[in-house]
């Protein structure tokens, strides 16, 4: 991970903030915008529950990155989204690690965050936007592995969007009740609160990353009980 940026965002600000942070992260990584060949967004909630196109295409468009007709030697960028509850940032990282080596470009943008879908949705969560420049160069914190554990997955603890006729608009409902797992921070291990959104998980983790000098495990436990653990080396 060459560079990263994060900030707290207000409703409807995810795209604007992501583009701003992406420009900062690219500058910090000391590369050119045109060097980015892959954009992967990880998150759950999008404005009006947008299902297409991928949010990442709006980031690419907002950056005006390779938005030109194709020629036989023009540079490329490919953009798409991944999602798996709060574990989405780790899935996005893993996906970049999977496919970046086979692409012509050696730099990817990891973008993480959630937007309040509609004004009718209860939104008590702290929403953060997180952007990082990822490369295969080995410079910066190195992702060693991402492991998953679905052993505690509870199919009753899902989240859905629905139309509420009383308010004539779309809302979110979190099904099932659970006692949230609290934040856990030991010397080489960090696990955020189970109720956090994707962006906050990454923001908090990276704020402790700077002080690390050997290894660090970052565990994200989704509301559904699913979890992922990313192992980092410094």
């Amino acid at each position, binding site marked *: 991970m060459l560079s990263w940026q994060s900030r707290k965002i207000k409703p409807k600000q995810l795209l604007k903030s992501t583009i701003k942070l992406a420009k900062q992260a690219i500058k910090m990584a000391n590369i050119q915008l045109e060097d980015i060949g892959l954009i992967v967004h990880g998150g*759950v*909630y*999008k404005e*009006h*529950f*947008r*299902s*297409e*196109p*991928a*949010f*990442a*295409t*709006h980031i*690419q*468009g907002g950056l005006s990155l*390779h938005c*030109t*007709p*194709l*020629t*036989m030697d023009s540079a*490329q*960028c*490919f*953009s*798409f989204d*991944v*999602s*798996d*509850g*709060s*574990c*989405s940032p780790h899935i996005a990282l893993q*996906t970049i690690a*999977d*496919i970046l080596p*086979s*692409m*012509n470009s050696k730099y990817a943008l990891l973008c993480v965050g959630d937007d309040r*879908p*509609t004004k009718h949705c209860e939104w008590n969560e702290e929403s953060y936007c997180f952007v990082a420049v990822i490369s295969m160069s080995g410079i910066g914190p190195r992702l060693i592995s991402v492991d998953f554990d*679905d052993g505690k*997955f509870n*199919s009753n603890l*899902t*989240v*859905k*969007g*629905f*139309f509420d*006729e009383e308010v*004539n*608009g*779309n809302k*979110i409902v979190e099904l099932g009740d659970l006692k949230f797992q609290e934040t856990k921070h030991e010397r080489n291990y960090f696990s955020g609160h189970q109720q956090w959104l994707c962006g906050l998980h990454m923001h908090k983790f990276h704020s402790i990353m700077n002080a690390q000098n050997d290894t660090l495990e970052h565990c994200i436990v*989704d*509301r*559904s009980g*699913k979890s992922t653990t990313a192992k980092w080396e410094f």
Partner: protein
Amino acid sequence: MERENHYAEMVSFAAYLPEKTVETKSFAGTKDLPGSLDFVRLTGITSHHEVAKGQGSLELAVQAGKKAISRAGIEPNSLGLIINASVSKMNTSLDQHLSPSLATLVASELGAKNAQTFDVSNACAGMVTALMIAESRIKSGKIDYAMVISGEFITPIIDEAKRRNLYLHPRALASLTVGDGSAAYILGSSKHKGRIKFSEPFTFAQYNRHCIGQASKNHIGPQMRTKARDLQNGVFNNIGTFLQRSLIHMDVKWDQIDHTYSHPTTPKAVKKGAKIASDLLGEINFLHNDSADTANTASTTHGVLLEKSQNSGHLNSDETAILISFGSGLAILAMHFNLPAGVENWS
């Protein structure tokens, strides 16, 4: 990272179409549309399939998944990865599934206890995007089998379009071209190199507002708004160069591709695209453009067409196919692969 002498191949594929069929002229006749538009003549779509009571995106996907597992002759526990690529993630009440991934629920239904699960969103290009991720994961040697799956319950956008005055909302017209369906692919490890090859993947983000799918703001269910002609031109303006670059990148010869499948927005659009391709590269050996009675089933279209080809006895183990994929955004990518062993004998 690619493990030495460790590659990927297509082990099986399957598609499922719900039984109920609806004729296009029953909801898009000349009296229903602006300018007495002959929608069947314009698009080439004569009918589509619609879900039965109790079926949503998940239920559709599971049907295709079960068939793909049976054809692959593996146990669900052998799957190390399941990626769901549905654009629609709706249940029968039109609620949208948000978290965790729909793939998690698919895995539970299929009994795939060892699979990592997540969703990929890349509109109609989602399944081929997910296949690219799955292939990389298999080549890394971390897993032996991966499933890419999608269930598309999208016909509620037809109802939404019908509710609109299409004279005032022509961007809802493309919503009349869709159908429900599902598809699944299983990739497995192989000792043979080159049985699956991908093109360079592209996103032409200058077209990222030409097709927007989201929840209706003041009504239950989803809606889609499309600048269909502009989006189609985005494809046509780039498809020739894309195919030329892809053949070089994949080291594949055009005349040696046995079966060609393009994302069928409409059969008429595929015909136009095929003309551009054949004028530039030569005749297409076998263009499978048989979506007149299934319509555009979003991310699952290639799987649906492959299933129809298999059912018609057109596919053989020693042959190759190319899937050319387009999705809102505008995403364009392609996958060339050897057809699975025994494909001609599947029931």
